[in-house]
């Protein structure tokens, strides 16, 4: 069956100028995607719709949901929208991405260290000091503290997009508390159960070792000399939208999931309250912002914090991942300087490009930007999750007017970026047919003794036609992301059983099943017995 005649892709065409991830410009599947498109054609629209229904039922049952705020206000639980058409990255593409990300994260880590110590980069005149000090995530309280191993950004996730010409660009760095990795794990599990047929012609690199990587990294930075380090995951609580993720990570790492009320600091040492009294904690993977962690040092009105935690951290009795104050490196204004950081700290050329960004503090730049507001994307610097983003080409006159006034009032709080032509990927619509939707990619890196990046990452997809906002809080979904073991078609072997079958158990001659098996082998003839 040729892909052109397959009904599921009928009428599917990449929309210029956007690049499509699975189809070339002429509408034929790219070589690595050919087998996938054939498998989808075998499944057909009905098969895809049916699998979608099964998916929703399973997700609801397992509680893999997120809460949306309905029209009337109250939250509604909905199954996480996983699109059943995977996205494919070849081994070669992934290697480039991986190196670029590792380079970037290393540079960001250097930057955080520098900001809270020597400030060399400021002295060199590369990044202006007022810009750093004026960031809301700059944490004076942790000045001069160097965590074990000099690692600040233990967990990082960079948002990548692919431009019309196929180059990867970094849209955003997340080095505070990047979320979404549990969806990478859940998506893969769900795909394998719902549409196993799609996998049949591929060897997809696994992702399920992420929790073990994270645990190893946390253990490696934990200040525990004598015994096995106690690691905990710290969640703001069940009302947090990412609570499911916190619970999944804690469960898969086999560590406790704690809330603020479980933690207490005594004499600069962190403990948790257990049924057998207080127990020392060596490393905390925290999933809440700096602002809330310690009412004595940060926001005094935080109910979610542990008084004295920063003091314990300063005393070096506990490792915190990510370290306090890393937010200064994922600010959207600091983002502009990351390529410079890579050159300065590592002496290398950046492997991944930034999106052209304008800082609006400079009057000339501001003038230029305000003149072209309709062609640019405007973002607030300190926000995440797609909040407050205005996309020039799709905004109304009034919206542009309003944003221009806000920029003039507080230019430092905003940045402008050139519009990126986010690539598209075929995505199942409600009737099971495919349509191009815009996607990005968030790979997750773990920085312990070295940097490990789980193959692939979270592909987020804007489920509304034409929309470029992929955040799940704003109607985005996700896709399973496949990194192929190798991009070459020759390496895509048919699934086969591993080649020598394991031998029968030796030296177990009597009793039970193995004894019977041996008898059968003997009955089968001397050759079979000799092989066993």
């Amino acid at each position, binding site marked *: 069956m040729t892909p052109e005649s397959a009904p599921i892709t009928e009428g599917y065409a990449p929309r210029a100028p956007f690049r499509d991830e699975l189809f070339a410009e002429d509408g034929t599947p790219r070589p690595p995607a050919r087998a996938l498109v054939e498998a989808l054609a075998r499944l057909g629209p009905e098969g895809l719709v049916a699998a979608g229904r099964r998916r929703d039922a399973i997700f*609801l*049952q*397992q*509680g893999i949901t997120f809460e949306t705020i309905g029209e009337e206000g109250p939250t509604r639980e909905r199954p996480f929208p996983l699109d059943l058409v995977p996205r494919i990255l070849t081994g070669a593409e992934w290697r480039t991405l991986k190196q670029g990300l590792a380079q970037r994260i290393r540079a960001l880590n250097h930057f955080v260290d520098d900001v809270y110590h020597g400030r060399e980069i400021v002295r060199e005149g590369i990044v202006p000091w007022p810009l750093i000090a004026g960031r809301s995530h700059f944490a004076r309280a942790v000045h001069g503290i160097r965590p074990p191993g000099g690692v600040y950004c233990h967990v990082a996730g960079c948002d990548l997009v692919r431009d019309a010409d196929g180059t990867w660009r970094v849209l955003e760095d997340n080095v505070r508390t990047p979320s979404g990795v549990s969806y990478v794990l859940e998506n893969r599990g769900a795909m394998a159960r719902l549409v196993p047929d799609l996998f049949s012609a591929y060897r997809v690199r696994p992702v399920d070792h992420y929790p073990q990587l994270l645990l190893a990294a946390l253990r490696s930075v934990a200040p525990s000399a004598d015994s096995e380090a106690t690691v905990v995951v710290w969640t*703001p*609580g*069940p*009302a*947090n*939208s990412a*609570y499911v993720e916190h*619970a*999944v990570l*804690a*469960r898969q790492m086999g560590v*406790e*999931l*704690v*809330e*603020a*009320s*479980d933690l207490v600091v005594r004499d600069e040492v962190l403990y*948790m*309250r*257990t*049924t*057998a009294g207080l127990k020392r904690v060596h490393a905390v993977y925290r999933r*809440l*912002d700096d602002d*809330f962690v310690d009412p004595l040092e940060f926001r005094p009105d935080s*109910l*979610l914090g542990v008084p004295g935690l920063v003091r314990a951290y300063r005393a070096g009795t506990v490792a915190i991942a990510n370290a306090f104050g890393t937010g200064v490196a994922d600010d959207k204004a600091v983002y502009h300087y990351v390529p410079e950081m890579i050159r300065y700290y590592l002496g290398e050329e950046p492997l991944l490009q930034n999106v052209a960004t304008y800082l609006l503090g400079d009057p000339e730049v501001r003038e230029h930007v305000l003149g072209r507001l309709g062609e640019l994307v405007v973002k607030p610097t300190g926000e995440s999750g797609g909040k407050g983003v205005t996309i020039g080409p799709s905004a109304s006159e009034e919206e542009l007017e309003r944003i221009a006034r806000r920029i003039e009032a507080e230019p430092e709080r905003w940045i402008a970026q050139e519009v990126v032509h986010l690539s598209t990927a075929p995505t199942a619509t409600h009737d099971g047919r495919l349509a191009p939707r815009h996607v990005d990619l968030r790979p997750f890196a773990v920085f312990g003794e070295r940097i490990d990046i789980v193959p692939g990452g979270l592909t987020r997809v804007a489920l509304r036609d034409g929309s470029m906002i992929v955040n799940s809080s704003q109607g985005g979904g996700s896709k399973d992301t496949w990194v192929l073991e190798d991009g070459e078609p020759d390496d895509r072997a048919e699934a086969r059983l591993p080649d020598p079958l394991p031998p029968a158990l030796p030296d177990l001659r009597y009793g039970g099943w193995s004894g019977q098996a041996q008898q059968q082998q003997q009955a089968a003839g001397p050759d079979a017995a000799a092989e066993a």
Partner: protein
Amino acid sequence: MLSRIAHELYWLGRNLTRAEITSRVVDGVFQVELQGATEASPGVVLGWGELLAMLGDGGDAGAMDRAEALERLTLDPQAPTSMRASVERAREGARTVRDVISADMWEAINTTALSLRGDDTPAWLAPAGPYLACQYVKERVALVWGLSDRTMLRDEAKAFLDAGSYMEAADLVLRMLRIAFPPGDDAAASGQALALLQAVGGFQAYRRAVPAPPNARPVARFLLFERAYPDSVAACVDSVHDALDGADTSPRNSEPVLRLSRLAADLDFQRRTLPDAAEIGATCEAVQQELARVDQDIAERYFAGAQAGRRTTVVEI
């Protein structure tokens, strides 16, 4: 194990058992009510008002009709006494401890709550009475416990889950007995008490264990002292004791474990020595107060003083 998690598990056990026992008593009372009282000796009366009082919602029971009371005990999401509210509370608790209980258990609890929320559940009540809804909850809770036996690690977590469950069972049986035998009411104490057995689903067990007809005194003794019957107070006290004894690192110094040992011995002693004519209500009251002290001790020793039902404040950020 974290105190907060232990506390949450304890209440998960309590809520599950509460949902189950509620479904049993509602079903039992509905059947008894339908048929009217036996003519000879009225004995113990257990109606909707008594039931609401037993579950702690007796305030305006007098002004309610049967359908309203039924709704309030089964599927009303607002009434804290309803089966559905218990299941919802269990689900909230299970959500918090989903990394501790097995995934199978969480899914069973979650789907139970979700289907009780479903649009077709009111139709369960209308033509058929509470049977369908009660049966569903009974089966689902049994499923959860079955899964916990098969899939959950037999560690501290299971111990606190079990402890909560048996505490709740003991508490509810004691409440029922105290309401059925108000102080000074001889008529109740000498009549028949089939209703009580039907309410807890223990009629068959009683018939097999006790040769006497189901009259008030032997039934009350059965529900209080019969160790072989799992929902009897003595059996529940034993089970709570065993659970905590296994979970505690030094049970010999543990206030709740010691108190439970004493209570278990005391119940055994009373079983042999309590005169037949003794007032049942008073005995129950003494046991209930002792159990309240056990509950307090448990909170202090294991839950870092966390109070019943009070959750830590959570703020969306």
